[in-house]
């Protein structure tokens, strides 16, 4: 088993929580993991990415080769598009549809969504709305992760276990909110299969 995942977003949007959840789930499964992150200057509202590699065999490079990512996950639609160079031709593009506009020249959102739809395998979902309906916008990241679960090759229960480890200290309510967010995202992704 080997899965290469690129996560894209804007500094401060919390892509590292998604990365940590996938990483914890993978390590608990006994898989090898490499997860490279962006720290420092770009974290100040710039575009950030994380490379996540899971494998049953030893992994060499911390960086995924261009054109070989199985999945690109965007917490933000334009940031998903920024990393399509990384995506394999038969890879899945999974993204939130709600833009994060902190630049004056953010392109027309309709054009961005149209570009996203050109990719043969895509899941585009309004994670913000789904999260709000569940009770907290903060869970949007987990909705997006949920939408990626069918393609990662790990079970929902693996991620539930990881969330318990990561959010356990914050109480059952937070854990359950995040688990429900995962499930809602998964359900949304099924519409695109």
């Amino acid at each position, binding site marked *: 088993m080997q899965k290469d995942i690129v996560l894209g977003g804007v500094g401060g949007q919390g892509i590292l929580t998604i990365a940590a959840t996938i990483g914890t789930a993978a*390590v608990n499964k006994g898989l090898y993991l490499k997860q490279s992150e962006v*720290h420092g200057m770009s974290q100040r509202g710039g575009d950030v990415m994380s*490379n996540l590699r899971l494998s049953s065999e030893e992994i060499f490079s911390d960086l995924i080769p*261009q*054109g070989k990512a199985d999945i690109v996950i965007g917490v933000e639609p334009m940031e998903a598009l920024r990393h399509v*160079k990384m995506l394999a031709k038969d890879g899945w593009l999974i993204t939130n549809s709600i833009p994060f506009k902190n630049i004056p020249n953010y392109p027309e959102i309709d054009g961005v969504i149209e570009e996203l739809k050109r990719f043969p395998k895509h899941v585009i979902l309004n994670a913000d709305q789904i999260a709000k309906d569940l009770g907290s916008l903060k869970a949007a990241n987990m909705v997006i992760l949920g939408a990626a679960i069918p393609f990662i090759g790990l079970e929902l229960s693996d991620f539930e276990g990881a969330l318990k480890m990561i959010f356990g200290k914050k109480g059952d309510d937070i854990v359950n909110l995040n688990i429900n967010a995962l499930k809602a995202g998964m359900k949304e992704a099924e519409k695109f299969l």
Partner: protein
Amino acid sequence: MQKIVLLGDEAIAQGAVDAGLSAVYAYPGTPSTEITEYILRSKEAKNGGIVASWTTNEKTSMEMAIGTSYAGKRALVTMKHVGLNVAADAFMNAAITGVNGGIVIVSADDPSMHSSQNEQDSRYYGKFAQIPILEPVNQQDAYDMMSYAFEMSERLNVPVLIRITTRLAHSRAGIVLGEKTPQNELKLPKNSRQFVLLPGIARVQYKSLLANQPLFEKESEEKGYNMLLDGKDKSLGVITTGIAYNYLMENFPEGIDFPVLKIAQYPMPLKMLREFYDSVDEILVCEDGYPLVEEQLKGYLDLGKTVHGRLDGALPRDGELNPNIVAKALGHEIVEQYETPGVVTQRPPALCAGCPHTDSYTALNVVMEYYGEGRVFSDIGCYTLAALEPLESINSCVDMGASITMAKGAAEAGLVPSVAVIGDSTFTHSGLTGLLDCVNAKAPVTVLILDNGTTGMTGGQTSQATGKIEDICIGLGVDKDHVRVINPIKKNHEENIKVMQEEMEYNGVSVVIPRRECIITLGARIRASKKK
């Protein structure tokens, strides 16, 4: 075997703790910050009485480590690559004093300048100081090398440099932990003059450093971090240094047929290199940094076998490596890729919403409209982002502290008034001495010390300047009537403009301190207090 998931930086930190560390000193700098941060957070380190602290700069850190070593204990110093420039005086001389307790210096390089102003390669410093260098290939290596580095440092009486790059520092992997070594007991150096570098003593010690070079090389040959991996296809041999090995192997999922010389320790293992060189037709050198090994291998006249790498264009001359760049150098076919759609717009980093610096610069911009553009010398920190749109307030960013001294130089060349803008932590790092130069020369310079109470860009570490800035400025001789504190909030905009303008009109050294807490640390503080 139980694995824990750690960043490369954290693996180094845990490795040091497990290696009997007694003290770590550091100034934060990307991509090195998480090493010392991890030790500061570690309960194990705290319970073990390990001293962990942020200091005013890398030079003071390095000197404290030499002091720890003098007292017989093991010390770690961590910094980003340009920090080693600041620490260089102490670093170079520590090679001559040698050690009592082991000293390990970690310098984190940033090829491609993700968060830096240059991409200098710290291995040159190690070579310059003629000390052993370790360059871990992966996070497990980084962990394992720490105990070896301290042990070797003491056994061979020499500080050891560990050189890492951004991708190793900021990538997580599962780490298997090793055995724990107890800390050293307090113990003075056997030779009471070891740390007295008077010329007569230094000459003797330098000769002993030179005499030890073959021992350092022997370590490189025998320790096992350097490996000559044979291959049946001798038409090419590949030399990799540090993490470049991973980018090479990524291109050979079924295993590689070419011989590979995997370098992770210096000085170069010459016997291994000779055997490798003689066995192959041509050589490709992959280094995540400057072409240090490649240049040496080619020599000035390039009379030997064909050597490919960064110097002949097989690999780009600058920037970090990645699997695709190495694939291209190997002549591998690159898989077809999607093009980035045209709608994708640049999203540069920016000051946070509510950042005090924005208000400081908004006022400064109004003042500078009056005096004319091109007069604002700035420094290194979040506030450097004011070079970009929309603020476009500053005209320089060179090195830590250079704002004040560049403003002095420009003012003395006739650019009056000249303005320096420096952060609180950068001010105590390297701004104090420059301010004293200004005071002594009565230079017509206005210095804005943006005091947000933290070292912001690297994630909010303790600032050594907090609560001391006015006293420092007055103590250095700035007239107390020209040390003015303002509150950079929108409501005070007009008043702040007035204060800045008054001080620029003053024909001497003046300091304006816009003081308001970093919005990020403020948020974190409020969240923490709510939890309680």
